[in-house]
């Protein structure tokens, strides 16, 4: 009876009310940022006295904001490609391999997900200081790849586990080489896994703040680092504009994942 929605009686209304209030609590701050980014008040008064695009034009007129967005985009793109390639090869080994400690090694690959990011950030900061990689594009790519790879391995492994290997074997029996069978039979079948690996790797890098704060140099910083640095000075609506763009990209990519899941799985 407690698990039957229609037979909950008046409890139903309480539960639905709590749920809707909670959903609103989660959603409203995000909408609030979008509203602020178009608001004309510099003092972030809400509701704003008027609407304007000036914060966006300030954002796009500032070479520093543009440079950091471009840096973020470049790093996230490189990380995505490397993460999917490395994740794909590793997943084949992890899902189909028969070597010792396979489960322990898989757990090891996923550890960066559970480690407090600040520990990794500080550790890589020290490491890259010694290797001369601090503040470089390679340093950014490596550190973001450490965080993105677990997502990639997880998505691709899951897809590969759901794929029946005998179909690939059948292709080999029909005369395909093992590599050809993998590329022309297996890869299309697990494409939804590859796609989510790519999107989650991109978003992990694009949204990453903590490691990036330690990795950044005055000449090379990602968009979140620029937001972070600006936030420490004041709460200018330009940040609302930058945040809105960050959120817009996230929504676009998430919608793509939802569509791709439907298209690729059917």
């Amino acid at each position: 009876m407690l698990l039957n929605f229609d037979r909950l009686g008046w409890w139903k209304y309480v539960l639905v009310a709590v749920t809707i209030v909670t959903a609103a609590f989660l959603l409203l701050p995000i909408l609030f940022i979008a509203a602020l980014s178009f608001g004309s008040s510099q003092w972030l008064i809400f509701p704003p006295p008027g609407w304007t695009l000036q914060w966006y034009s300030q954002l796009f007129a500032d070479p520093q904001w543009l440079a950091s967005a471009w840096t973020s985009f470049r790093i996230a793109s490189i990380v995505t490609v490397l993460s999917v390639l490395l994740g794909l090869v590793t997943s084949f080994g992890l899902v189909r391999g028969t070597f010792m400690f396979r489960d322990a090694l898989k757990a090891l690959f996923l550890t960066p997900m559970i480690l407090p990011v600040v520990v990794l950030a500080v550790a890589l900061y020290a490491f890259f200081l010694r290797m001369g990689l601090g503040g470089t594009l390679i340093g950014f790519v490596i550190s973001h790849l450490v965080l993105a790879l677990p997502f990639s391995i997880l998505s691709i492994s899951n897809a590969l586990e759901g794929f029946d290997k005998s179909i690939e074997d059948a292709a080999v029996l029909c005369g395909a080489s093992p590599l050809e069978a993998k590329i022309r039979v297996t890869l299309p079948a697990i494409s939804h896994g590859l796609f989510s690996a790519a999107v989650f790797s991109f978003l992990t890098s694009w949204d990453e703040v903590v490691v990036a704060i330690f990795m950044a140099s005055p000449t090379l910083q990602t968009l979140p680092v620029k937001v972070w640095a600006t936030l420490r000075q004041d709460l200018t609506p330009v940040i609302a504009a930058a945040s809105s763009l960050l959120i817009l990209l996230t929504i676009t990519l998430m919608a793509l994942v939802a569509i791709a899941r439907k298209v690729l799985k059917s």
Partner: protein
Amino acid sequence: MSTYIDVASETATTSKAIRPTGFGEIIPALLFVGIFFIVPVVALLLRSVLEPVVGFGNYAELLGSATYLKIFANTFIVSGLVTAISLLIGFPVAWTLAIMPSRLASLIFAVLLLSMWTNLLARTYAWMVLLQRTGLINKMLMGMGLIDQPLPLVNNLTGVTIGMTYIMLPFIILPLYGVIKKIDPTVLQAAALCGANRWQCLTRVLLPLAARGMVAGALMVFVMSLGYYVTPSLLGGTANMMLAELIAQFVQSLVNWGMGGAAALVLLVVTLSLYAVQLRLFGVQNTGGR
């Protein structure tokens, strides 16, 4: 497939064992993770006992000073509060989602996922603006006549707790939803048939059945909160530092790698031991501490 191999290996006991396959494919990733993850983390932790002098001096200083103990206390109190509030709000929401008509539920799921994947800084910024003295929350409370003076809601632990709870809610709702969805509704019907009223069904059947998931979800939120850096440092004041910020400060401003490493090890040990407990209770969970 695997049973076939097992049978083959058992019948051919005299021949050599099957050659392991697939290890070559994980070598690149293993090298990468080894060099850029394990080595740096181990090196950082080693510095805690090697610098400035060999020994456990850093740990003695960390655990013996009132300043640092207060930071530990802050971290545990805020993480505990965030966990308790998230659980209190998250349970009814997860319960409703599990039994709600699916169309409305999928809409709310979309909100949960959106907020989970919305940039952390963007969400924290929203709360910095909402909670400031002239912010919307204070204005609304004053407009309703509940308060005369703006409440100090930001640059203190109140702000950190609000902001962190906001971030953690989806992380507790989703696993709880999974647990409640798995409970067999006939068990509750049986309890009702045996004469239990609604309240008894809730406290003596549903809650105990969901308890394991609640503990696991709570542990996960607690662990993630302990290591968060961005939200506490933006919404908390300098007087209310938390552990992650302490680590960053040792390294960035004080350039004290020994103390930084020691604080990192404390955080790591607490995180990994609680995670091990959670793993035994619940299996692998997808987390991400920022």
